[in-house]
């Protein structure tokens, strides 16, 4: 498999604080890689390292197969575009002027494709409006537009939907999916809004305490997120006895509620409960959400 980005034991310290603590990850080519972690986990720090804004304390990464310590990595960065934290835009310039500025920085010979980029992000009609008068969503979109200058094939987006309204979130999501499907752009997107990531990502990297605790594809995540049946019964003690007898994993939530994992035979279960004098009031099927999977994953790491 081809990887756009590979990191090997990256470490970064800010005085005594270890922001990255041996982070190793791999971003496959053509993927939408969801980088999941809580605030302060190290997501933005990693992005700053691969964008060349900071240097690692130890470890290295490879961008398109070029090692970070190799001077050729500067050329490799020309194939990527990034929005790090807040959009890097000139507030006293219009959207078009900002893109022209970016074209000049990239050394592109002409401004071809500039209007198409503005249309793609929905900023074509902003005219002479200065960026300081843009809404937050418009500024985010302008930041993405600037990252798209020069036709990059690797896009790094650091929490791009922060502060956006629901409409804005949908537009950004559809834009990312479109770029990935139509132009095969690899996307590394960091977020702590797990529900939104679950609609986008093809691969996930879960980060906590400055290191990756699990990397998996979307298919592997779906398989790992456990299905369970939520039972509402009249006597959870009786339920517990029956499930223990059947060797089925469960979790008692309250006097009347319990989660039963795996795929129990409902007929056998209800008959067994009836023998114990326990009524089954309702049964609901649930999938474990990305959120609960992440929380269990982090808790599991802490307990190890």
């Amino acid at each position, binding site marked *: 498999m081809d990887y756009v980005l590979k990191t090997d034991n990256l470490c970064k310290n*800010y005085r005594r604080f270890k922001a990255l603590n041996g982070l190793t990850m791999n971003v496959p080519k053509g993927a939408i890689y969801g980088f999941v972690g809580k605030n302060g986990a190290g997501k933005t720090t990693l992005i*700053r390292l691969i*964008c*060349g*804004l*900071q*240097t690692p304390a130890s470890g290295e990464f490879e961008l398109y197969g070029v090692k970070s310590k190799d001077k050729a990595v*500067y*050329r*490799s*960065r*020309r194939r*990527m*575009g*990034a929005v*790090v*934290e*807040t*959009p*890097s*835009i*000139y*507030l*006293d*310039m219009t959207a078009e*002027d900002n893109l*022209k*500025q*970016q074209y*000049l*920085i*990239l*050394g592109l010979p002409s401004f071809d494709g500039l209007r198409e980029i503005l249309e793609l992000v929905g900023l074509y009609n902003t005219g002479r409006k200065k960026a300081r008068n843009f809404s937050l969503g418009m500024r985010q979109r302008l930041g993405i537009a*600037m990252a798209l200058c*020069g036709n990059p094939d690797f896009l790094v987006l650091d929490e791009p939907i922060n502060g956006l309204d629901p409409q804005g979130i949908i537009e950004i999501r559809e834009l990312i999916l479109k770029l990935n499907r139509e132009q095969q752009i690899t996307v590394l997107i960091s977020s702590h809004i797990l529900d939104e990531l679950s609609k986008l990502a093809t691969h996930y990297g879960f980060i906590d305490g400055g290191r990756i605790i699990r990397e998996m594809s979307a298919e592997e995540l779906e398989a790992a997120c456990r299905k369970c049946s939520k039972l509402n019964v009249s006597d959870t003690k009786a339920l517990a006895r029956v499930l223990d007898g059947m060797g089925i994993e469960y979790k008692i939530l309250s006097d009347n509620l319990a989660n039963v994992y795996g795929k129990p035979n409902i007929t056998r279960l209800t008959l067994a409960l009836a023998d114990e004098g326990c009524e089954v009031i309702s049964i609901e099927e649930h999938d474990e959400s990305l959120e609960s999977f992440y929380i269990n994953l982090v808790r599991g790491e802490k307990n190890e």
Partner: protein
Amino acid sequence: MSSLLSAGIYRYRKSAVFRVMLLTALILGAITGAIADSSSQLNATYLFGMFLAAAIQISLIIGAEFTNGAFRNKLIAGHSKGKVFLSELLLSLTSTTVLFIAHYGAFVLFNLSRFEKLETGEIAQVIFGAWLMHLAFAAICTAVCFFIPYNSAIAAVVNIIPVIVMMFTVSELHLKLNEREYNTVYVADENGNMVAEDEINPEYIPPDSAEYAVIHAVYYLMPCGQLNDYQYALSELWNDREPNEKYLEDLKTAPIYSFAAMTLFSAAAFLCFRKKDLK
């Protein structure tokens, strides 16, 4: 590098700050030129506005690069920190040159008849030396912006305050360097008549001493120190006399000090920027 410079020129063209400072430099040059024309002496404060315009312009434009995160775009685009720093320095120096031409061009136009008394070589020396002096100041302001990133307002204040402090400091240093060797004191002779006698001035610093060389170096490393000496060199022109050759002779070394100040501050700022973790 050429792409960074092209982008920078585009940015300056679009910058309201640069346009306002250019207009300010032009107007200030014209106003102070008119005031000097009607005055009986040349005062260095007439030429001060140029320093303030350059300090404000450089602080706000480079400060905005940090505040807006625009430096990130350049590094992500694959440019090294060295190239980014060098391009910003060159742009500061170029924009300062443009302000220099506007300000001093207007000043000299109002006082053309006086400057016509200078020989071609002296004109070239004055223009070249004054230009390098302003470039040194621009390099210092640029360095301050890189020492204090992410806050253009603080950088602007830090750049302006030393200008005012320098004004007073160079006056004191100029007095120290030009202390007379002997003071005239009046003493009574045997008949009770007051006669003048020369007494050694304890504040006098011999020109060939190490102390004089150090004070002179500090005086000339400060752009305002050189400006002070240009004032003294050209002040005779305001009274229809030839320029003061002593100061013109001293000012022949001024470009060396300007170049040294530019190099020292730029090198320090680059080393600081290279090590800095950008957000």
